[in-house]
């Protein structure tokens, strides 16, 4: 078994381990986004979910750089995630300089401006319903290759399962409730980033790194840490 194969196996075991009762959906997606970057040998990964307005919202990313957040937001008007979400099929642009501008006149230049040359989007679907997409970015142009693409889609499927608990997916209502919960958790984390950034005079990106590190070192849910930061019960979050 190659190193990559072993790493893939470890990742799936690690992800499966987090899928216990009352688990932390944001922490799970965060881990997944980081593993996608590592295993697919890409430079950034973002997970977007559609809300009840049909708006795509970033819920997790391998990097909390504002640029990545902006690229996700932009895709509510155009971009690979929107295309993957609408068609339910993977979308790839191996070189954003060739053809990217025709297809996405706003997204392609913005992505290049952020330093990305290749972009891929994998639909997150539950049977006939597409709930969002996984966005993968590369700094160098190039295709993902069929194996990486298949692995990426498997990761996107795992993300879907992680968001929609298997046992309740038969009910549309539960799906909507769980999507809503994931999106709302994300909003809470953004608020906590702001609170911490202001308190410690750091950037919002650094604030997220602190939140995440604190959640991991105390083995807590990202959502719970965020809630405690916002309501002021947790003040001791800083670089150690």
């Amino acid at each position, binding site marked *: 078994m190659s190193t990559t194969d072993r790493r893939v196996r470890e990742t799936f075991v690690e992800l499966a381990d987090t899928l216990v009762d009352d688990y932390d959906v944001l922490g799970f997606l965060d881990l997944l986004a980081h593993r996608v970057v590592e295993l697919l040998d890409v430079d950034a990964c973002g997970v977007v979910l559609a*809300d*009840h*307005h049909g*708006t795509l*919202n*970033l819920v997790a990313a391998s990097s909390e750089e*504002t640029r990545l*957040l902006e690229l996700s*937001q932009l895709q509510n008007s155009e971009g690979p995630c929107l295309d993957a979400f609408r068609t339910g099929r993977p979308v790839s642009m191996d070189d954003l300089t060739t053809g990217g501008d025709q297809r996405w006149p706003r997204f392609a230049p913005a992505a290049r401006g952020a330093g990305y040359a290749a972009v891929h989007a994998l639909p997150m679907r539950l049977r006939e319903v597409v709930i969002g997409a996984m966005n993968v970015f590369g700094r160098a142009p190039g295709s993902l290759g069929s194996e990486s693409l298949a692995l990426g889609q498997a990761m996107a499927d795992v993300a879907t399962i992680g968001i929609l608990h298997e046992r309740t997916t038969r*009910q*549309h*209502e*539960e799906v*909507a*409730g769980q999507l*809503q*919960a994931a*999106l*709302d*958790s*994300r*909003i*809470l*984390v*953004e*608020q*906590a*980033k*702001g*609170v*911490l*950034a*202001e*308190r410690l005079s750091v950037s*919002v990106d650094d604030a997220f790194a602190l939140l995440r590190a604190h959640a991991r070192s105390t083995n807590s849910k990202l959502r719970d840490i965020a*809630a405690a930061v*916002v*309501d002021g019960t947790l003040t001791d979050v800083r670089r150690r």
Partner: protein
Amino acid sequence: MVGATGAREPVLAVGALCEELEELQSTLGQGPGVDAAAGDGVVLVPDLADGPAVRRWPVFAPAAAERGMRGLFAFPVAAGAARVGVLDVYRRDPGGLGAELLATALAFADAVLVVVLDERGAVAGGPDHRRDAMLPERRAEVHQAAGMVSVQLGIQVSEALVRLRAYAYVHERRLADVAADVVARRLRFAPDRRGTDDTAVGSEMMDAPPNSDHDHPEGGT
């Protein structure tokens, strides 16, 4: 029938039975709406007479079912930590809401949030303004900015959202742009020294960017 509950007490209930049940939840401190308000997210109860519902709300669920109300669907009127209330949707017949009605109810809860925030900020923008300012509510930067402003002013995040929206409205700017300025630290909110209420939104800005239109007449309505 729809009732919108504030943090503690019902502020609007449509229909006598709905009003009674809202009061009951509030008095007992028990029920789907109470749980939704406490941060449990969307609470969907297709049948209040059913075992799980009765076990979870042993007094409220049977009382509601006895009065002929079987379905209760509670939607937080909230964005993250900014929780302003709950939208309770009641139904006489048992059964799920269905995907379409559920999406509608969630959209209603969003609309109520916007209306409540703007009412607190004394923003009288009308439906057109709200349609514009409604969707960016989910933008990451708006919520990051709300977190920052809550610390700058020593207020709750919901109140910070109120101030941000009111500022954007008074200065005729997009909420997302105002939020971006706050996050980039080009704009800070300072406590209002006059001690007046939120209607004085235009006067509480300090260190506004040099090119901003901070001299825009207050109110603008």
